[in-house]
């Protein structure tokens, strides 16, 4: 059970970083309030809370890549990982230790997002619990991207790739800020070849109680999550047995 000690350390490192809390919890909540205020002042239905909150929940999860990637990259660059690689921790201990603390943080972040949405008019019902479950593969996908980025890049590079590029790509191509049908064409095709729009649509379907529409979208997310997490684990294990950390 050595991985539990390592997981506990990682949880503390993540939660004690005020930037993580600001971006992970504060930013999505601010967005919900801001976009709901805009919605209240425009005649078209652009940011209805039932459509907005699933999008913001997925967008918020994209920060999990930044958190996990930065943590791993910093451990590498400060030699902390070298100390741990010289210890009896196995590859699976490392992977579980990095991934496990992020899952409850991701779920808590999504839960806070929905609870905030209740105050902005989202219906309080059991579908929100289903939406939280639907978001788990999305959380794993973003954590996997972070594990991969943190294993390969420096913490500064992770900041640029996961903090700037990924969050923007995930946001623009998810259909959160605008209806993808409004753009259509190649943009929409590309968006639906990637997992982010499917993640938002699956969560929206869960919130709406449209159960039949969940799985067709969720399979895309699960497929990407399994592939990315698998690649991340392989790359991490290779890095562990290589000479360059």
């Amino acid at each position, binding site marked *: 059970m*050595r991985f539990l000690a390592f997981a506990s350390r990682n949880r503390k490192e993540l939660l004690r970083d005020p930037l993580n809390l600001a971006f992970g919890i504060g930013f999505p909540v601010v967005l919900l309030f801001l976009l709901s205020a805009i919605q209240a002042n425009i005649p078209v239905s652009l940011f209805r809370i039932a459509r907005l909150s699933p999008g913001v929940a997925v967008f918020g999860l994209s920060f999990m890549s930044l958190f996990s990637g930065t943590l791993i990259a910093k451990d590498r660059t400060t030699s902390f990982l070298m100390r741990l690689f010289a210890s*009896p921790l196995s590859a699976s201990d490392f992977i579980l230790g990095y991934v496990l603390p992020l899952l409850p943080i991701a779920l808590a972040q999504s839960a806070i997002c929905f609870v905030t949405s209740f105050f902005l008019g989202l219906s309080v019902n059991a579908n929100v619990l289903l939406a939280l479950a639907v978001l788990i593969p999305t959380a794993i996908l973003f954590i996997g991207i972070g594990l991969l980025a943190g294993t390969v890049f420096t913490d500064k590079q992770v900041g640029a790739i996961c903090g700037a590029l990924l969050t923007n790509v995930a946001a623009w191509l998810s259909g959160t800020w605008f209806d993808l049908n409004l753009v259509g064409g190649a943009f929409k095709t590309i968006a639906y070849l990637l997992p982010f729009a499917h993640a938002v649509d699956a969560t929206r379907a869960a919130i709406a109680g449209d159960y039949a529409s969940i799985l067709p979208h969720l399979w895309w997310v699960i497929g990407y999550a399994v592939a990315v997490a698998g690649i991340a684990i392989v790359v991490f294990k290779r890095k562990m047995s290589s*000479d360059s950390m």
Partner: protein
Amino acid sequence: MTTAIQATDLTKKYGAKIAVDALNLSVEQGELFALLGVNGAGKTTTIKMLTCLSRPTSGDAFLLGDSVVSAPGAVKEKTNVSPQETAVAPNLSVKENLELIAQIYGSDKRAARTKADEMLSVFGLTGVTGDRAKTLSGGMQRRLSIAMALISDPQILFLDEPTLGLDVLARRELWAAIEELKGRVTIVLTTHYMDEAEALSDRIGIMSEGELKAVGTSAELMSKTGTRTLEDAFVSLATEPGVRA
């Protein structure tokens, strides 16, 4: 005397570059052995191979009977390392850092707490028990790093340039802490400070360009080279072509 480390033709190549060239070395149990050399001499690569962080290209080393090539798990259970760069978890307190390493090496929570208290006392860290590691001075972080390496009760301890970058007072304090360990723990210490090697070690190995040029006490090395200081002996051995221990 029991042999703690027996390296036979230990070699590491990176492509065409030979980082460590057929190193043969024997270190007795309880001995403090210093590896002395300029930057790039192969000291850190040797430590990495002996701590199972880097697989030898050829040759082998046995640590208390276990091979770094075929039984790295067994080697890791009885060794610990304080890497060249200070390797601490920045957002964990001093005590939490110590408890983390104790638990990773198999202690339960209670035993880890007891061991941490002991290390805090031995290394004069009781005044900063609850302070986050990132707030400590360089000297205190290095001291914590060494305490973290010792909390697992290793039979063999590797200290990679433990006083690099420290001021004179911090260096002397660390020397005193290392002196305390002599005889109880087998220590391999790398350094490029002559005075450090002379003050702390039972024997000194001089490395240059990946080769172990000579091994002996400082008096033996001076006698061998007909010099009056260890620095002169080092310069003579490190620059003399074709010399090998």
